[in-house]
């Protein structure tokens, strides 16, 4: 019963939406104050030099020419070359370089969230309205209320400076040449694959705090979702089954309820992963790990428009696809929604 028509309809709708996003990104960047030619040329350039660059970038062309050119390039995943941060290197390459960093963080955050969030959520639901439940709920709320850029630095202060047991920043000790054994770009994975145990330990030590910080946030979110989802399902099922079979069916109901409650949570995890990628921006900044988030912030700061365009557009595509996948999964699992 795969909802083919539904999927096709949504895929078709994808096209105007992405076109809209591309147009939005193009307009944002052309509305921004700032002259890329001056930025690239730098302080030592003569006016003549600046003009040369401006012509070279096609900035003197009429705006609609630039727009069509932009759309054409973007359709082929060509985001151009960086203006400032890594001149004469394609944005695609730059993003490929930095993505693994963010991915690693998000992955660990997600892992934490699933490992701790699901059990906590179940516990909270099962012990509803008891002290445990209240404590967990407040804890989870605190977890999503505490800003990463407050807790992170304080943790660094505590563990790196006061206690001196963890490193101050970075992904791995600079003593190791981790680029030489690169496979995925994620330090913990690469060092593991290469069997370099000392390097692996270094990577783990460095990624420990950032992972915890993002993990706490993810745990809080997932435990809340798990709890409410579980309560919803159990309440319905329990009522029905209890009436039909009598009180002794509670255990079966809870087990059955758990499985059902997991469905929306699993799909939410998919969407939340995207949110984690975004939340990584702050974690990256705080722990001085250069990922896509830091790249975007830096690009905006210096006016490196191709990078801003590329990053924003890629995220848009990614999340739209994730949304679609989630909707499809949901509709596949719950036939009611297909109507």
């Amino acid at each position, binding site marked *: 019963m795969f909802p083919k028509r539904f999927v096709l309809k949504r895929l078709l709708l994808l096209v105007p939406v992405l076109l809209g996003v591309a147009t939005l990104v193009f307009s944002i960047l052309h509305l921004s104050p700032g002259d890329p030619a*001056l930025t690239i040329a730098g302080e030592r350039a003569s006016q003549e030099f600046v003009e040369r660059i401006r012509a070279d970038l096609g900035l003197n062309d009429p705006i609609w020419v630039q727009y069509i050119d932009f759309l054409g390039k973007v359709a082929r995943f060509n985001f151009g070359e960086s203006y400032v941060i890594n001149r004469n290197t394609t944005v695609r390459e730059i993003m490929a370089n*930095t993505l693994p960093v963010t991915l690693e963080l998000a992955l660990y955050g997600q892992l934490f969230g699933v490992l701790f969030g699901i059990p906590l959520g179940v516990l909270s639901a099962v012990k509803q309205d008891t002290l445990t439940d209240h404590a967990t709920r407040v804890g989870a709320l605190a977890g999503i209320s505490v800003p990463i850029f407050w807790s992170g630095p304080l943790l660094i202060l505590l563990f790196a400076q006061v206690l*001196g047991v963890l490193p101050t920043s970075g992904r791995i000790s600079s*003593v190791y040449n981790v680029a030489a054994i690169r496979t995925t770009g994620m330090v913990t994975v690469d060092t593991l694959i290469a069997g370099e145990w000392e390097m692996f330990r270094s990577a783990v030590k460095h990624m420990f705090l950032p992972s915890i910080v993002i993990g706490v946030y993810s745990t809080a979110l997932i435990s809340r979702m798990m709890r409410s989802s579980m309560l919803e399902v159990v309440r319905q099922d329990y009522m029905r089954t209890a009436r039909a079979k009598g009180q002794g069916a509670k255990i079966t109901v809870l087990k059955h309820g758990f499985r059902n409650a997991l469905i929306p949570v699993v799909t939410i995890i998919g969407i939340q992963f995207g949110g984690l990628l975004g939340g990584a921006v702050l974690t990256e900044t705080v722990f001085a790990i250069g990922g896509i988030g830091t790249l975007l912030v830096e690009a905006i700061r210096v006016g490196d428009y191709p990078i801003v365009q590329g990053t924003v557009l890629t995220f848009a595509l990614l999340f739209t696809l994730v949304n679609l996948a989630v909707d499809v999964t949901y509709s596949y699992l719950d036939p009611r929604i297909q109507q």
Partner: protein
Amino acid sequence: MSSQDDGVSRRTFLGAAGGAAVTVGLAGCSGTDDGSDGSDGGDGSDGSDALLRYGRGSHSSTLDFQNSTSGEVAKVTEQIYDTLINFEPGESTLTDGLASDYSLDGQTASLTLKEGVTFHNGEEFTAQDFVATYRRFVDSEYEYYAGDDYVSAYGPFTLGSWIDDIQVDGDYEMTIQLTQTYAPFLRNLAMFAAAVHSEAAIEEFGTDLSENAVGTGPFELDTLDDTNEQIRLTAYDDYWGDGPQVDEVVFVTVGENSTRAQSLASGELDVIDGIGAQSSQQVSNADGVELVRTDGINVGYMAFNITAVEEFQDRRVRQAISHAIDTEAIVEQIYSGFATEASQPLPPNVLGHNDDIDPYEYDPERAQSLLEEAGYGDGFSFELATFQNPRGYNPSPIQTAETVSSNLGEVGIDVEINQQSFSPFLEYTAQGRHDACFLGWYTDNADPDNFAYVLLHPQVDEGELSDGQDWVSFDAEGYNTSNRASWANQEYMDLVEEAQRTTAESDRAALYNEAMRIAHDEAPWVYLDYAEELRGVADRVSGFQIAAISGPYLNLVSLE
């Protein structure tokens, strides 16, 4: 109910226990206290490679000195490449580079190059390599020209505008014909942008030289790691000069000053730069590391946009404002003493600095009377444009702006602060849209022309100037936008032009002395400070020579 509960709690317990185990395991790993991994950069004494870890504030993703004007790029290329002429480490005097002999006579520069120098790819260095490098930078007809979108503004600035022709005699003799007599030329050859590529590498890599490096320098490229923002170099054993004495160098990027200083203090780094007033405290207070300082070759100032603001067109107003601002307090309190008060555009360690000129004294009363004389006793208002992020010559721009504002408020002048981030700020002021602005300049070649001509000469045709007017619009044809004051003082311009064409040092000095006197008296800028250079160096590092220009000289460094 109970078994379900146990199930849940067991799961939760295991999860928590697992977490605890991980924590304990990691705590056990740290061994020594300092947060490093127990294996800090080896020092070579036990047979392991001596690794020098240099920490800086931002990554440089290009290895090609012709591709960027950034100082971050320079730090790395200085280790991999050589220039024909060098700066003496820690000084601003010139010494041999790839040229063993060099001289400048009128419009001709003659150089004799060293023999027996090899590139990292084994090729012998000859004059042809320099010619190929030069043509790649500025000659669009050259087969291997890097392209308009690739070459940096240093192309014309350093070489292109001054070189007419290069003649090569054999492999080691070179004569360069200049477009005019240009006294700073030999110093330009010492700039990082004038380094030498291997002709073979140019032909092989083209624009991929931004990721591959083949130089004659003490270190060769091992890895350019953009993901982790690190650059690793290994020692080049056939280096023609001193050292290298360490086996490996890694440039590490740590964005925040305080984090970088902490990493130095905890033993994760060996040398750091980019130290501000706050982080300097961290370095001074920490054990096992030292704060090293020296005079910089730079100037920080506030420029009056004379064309734009009528009040600024009266010299007395500019002088009044110079007297009204307490630069001593700024330097002592805001810059924490890591700078000295400025009195003129040239810093003290540059040829032509006029030692007889003192900074404007803080004297609000004199300021008030000057204003009254000029007819502005009731005051007026103007906008001060500033950038937000700290720059070496102005480590606390907002605070400095606030001090200026409150100082001038005392004499009835109302200052409105317009703060922007650096890129938009540069654009805004390059277009002359400011009333007044903060800015500064770090020298490219320690030559007076680099300050006096580049920053205060309008460089427009005679026809654009008006008689009796000491200013010219930013919109004038060919206007030099680096002159943020729009100042056009004929006497000053004549002196500086002549000094540019005078090669005899003492004559040049005299010309600049006079020019500085004019610049001080006419006050197109409020002269704020000359900032010091600061580095943090771990005790295990020896031989580190702090330098205000060029460097770091990592070939001189050893680890114990």
